């Protein structure tokens, strides 16, 4: 077992092979383990890494780390700590959203992206950020020249000045409490709640229930159930909740490295992208390609190991990843 610690919390991962790095990121239902067949396939030409996200598999169960942004930061920290300057990223479900966000934030560190069963929804454009109104404060202790409840106000300040402002604010608060003065009302909520179509679509956030609904019975399901039961249910729930406002479809449109989206035609957990989505993703000659794996459900990497692994290898090796196609076994024999 391989692991590293981030601020004393353990991150479990496995690595195999030698060559250019490929990082595999699992989704809501499972752990690094369902990448084992892919890692075996890649080992001859690539060094693949598969990690357990916070709250999943053997990684630390720390609820403060379960949010979507935290999981993206984990990927960043993981690459930094292992000295991986640039890698191909392969993500499934939640993992697809994570690698997409990372590729958007750090395009120079990503050579290409395979998004497997990505969570794509038609979402309204994100609203413009609204400045909270200047809440009037009691003048009991004289005029307050600043507020310390906005990060923007402290950016650019030197540490000493920022600390001095914070101390002054704390002292005023202590005086208010001592004098029994009620706290001012917090500013009214100025933003509408962020849309979360994923949460609306899923009937439950219970990982075992989700898995039994969206994977066929058989040895794959049995193995996945073992892994799903290792996850903290709060990690699954919170990563779903914190997908509010995460628009992976729009983010994929802005990602610079080449992207291949792969999805099962019979995936009942996350809908296959419709033609409008695909057109938007391909617009303006973007290096985007999508492949539907017919008859497969939410885990194409397990439902048809051979076909998925061939596709993965082709995608990683292709000079132009947008021209990758599914190869059926019989094609080789016909030649």
């Amino acid at each position, binding site marked *: 077992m391989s692991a590293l610690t981030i601020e004393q919390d353990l991150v479990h991962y*496995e690595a195999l092979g030698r060559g250019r790095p490929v990082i595999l990121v699992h989704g809501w239902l499972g752990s690094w383990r369902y990448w084992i067949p892919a*890692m075996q396939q890649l*080992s*001859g030409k690539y060094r693949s890494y598969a990690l357990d996200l916070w709250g999943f598999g053997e990684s630390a169960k720390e609820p403060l780390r379960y949010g979507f942004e935290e999981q993206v930061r984990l990927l960043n920290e993981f690459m930094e700590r292992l000295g991986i300057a640039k890698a191909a990223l392969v993500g499934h479900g939640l993992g697809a959203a994570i690698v997409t966000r990372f590729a958007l934030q750090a395009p120079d560190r990503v050579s290409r992206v395979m998004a497997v069963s990505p969570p794509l929804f038609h979402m309204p454009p994100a609203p413009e950020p609204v400045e909270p109104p200047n809440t009037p404060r009691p003048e009991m202790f004289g005029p307050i020249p600043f507020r310390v409840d906005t990060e923007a106000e402290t950016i650019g300040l030197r540490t000493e000045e920022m600390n001095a402002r914070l101390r002054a604010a704390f002292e005023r608060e202590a005086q208010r409490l001592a004098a029994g003065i009620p706290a001012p009302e917090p500013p009214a909520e100025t933003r509408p709640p962020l849309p979360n179509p994923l949460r609306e679509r899923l009937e439950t956030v219970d990982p075992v229930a989700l898995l039994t609904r969206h994977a066929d019975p058989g040895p794959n399901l049995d193995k996945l159930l073992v892994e799903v039961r290792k996850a903290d249910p709060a990690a699954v729930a919170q990563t779903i909740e914190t997908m509010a406002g995460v628009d992976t479809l729009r983010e994929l449109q802005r990602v610079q490295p080449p992207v291949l989206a792969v999805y099962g035609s019979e995936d009942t957990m996350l809908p296959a992208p419709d033609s409008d989505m695909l057109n938007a993703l391909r617009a303006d000659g973007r290096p985007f390609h999508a492949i539907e794996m017919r008859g497969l459900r939410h885990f194409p990497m397990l439902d048809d190991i051979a076909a998925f692994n061939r596709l993965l290898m082709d995608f990683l090796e292709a000079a132009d990843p947008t021209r990758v196609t599914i190869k059926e076994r019989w094609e080789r024999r016909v030649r």
Partner: protein
Amino acid sequence: MAKILIAEDERDIRDLIEFTLKYAGHEVFKARNGAEAVEMAPQVKPDLIVLDVRMPRMTGYEACRQLKAHDELKDTPIVFLSAKGQQSEMETGIDAGAYDYILKPFAPDTLIRRVGEILAKFGVGGA
């Protein structure tokens, strides 16, 4: 779960075999050549030994003969990894005391299945 000792001089193949067998639930010990395998086996007391044929310092054949001559290991099944098409290698391996062989290159699933079959045949639990 079984204890398996593997001897393979090529690191990539050694790592892949270890990875595959470990995540099939076995405890895996690695040797880089025949001599290391002969040295490790009495301490590890494996349920199965997997030997490559062509290795530096000591070939798989010689390692097999020495392991079979060891009182505590004479009943431990030994399997050779043999290159496809090398019929003579397979015969030599069997003559040296190997129980069976697996042809390279092999798919990970094939390795797991064959190892499982051999362990079951020798009554090793968890195969």
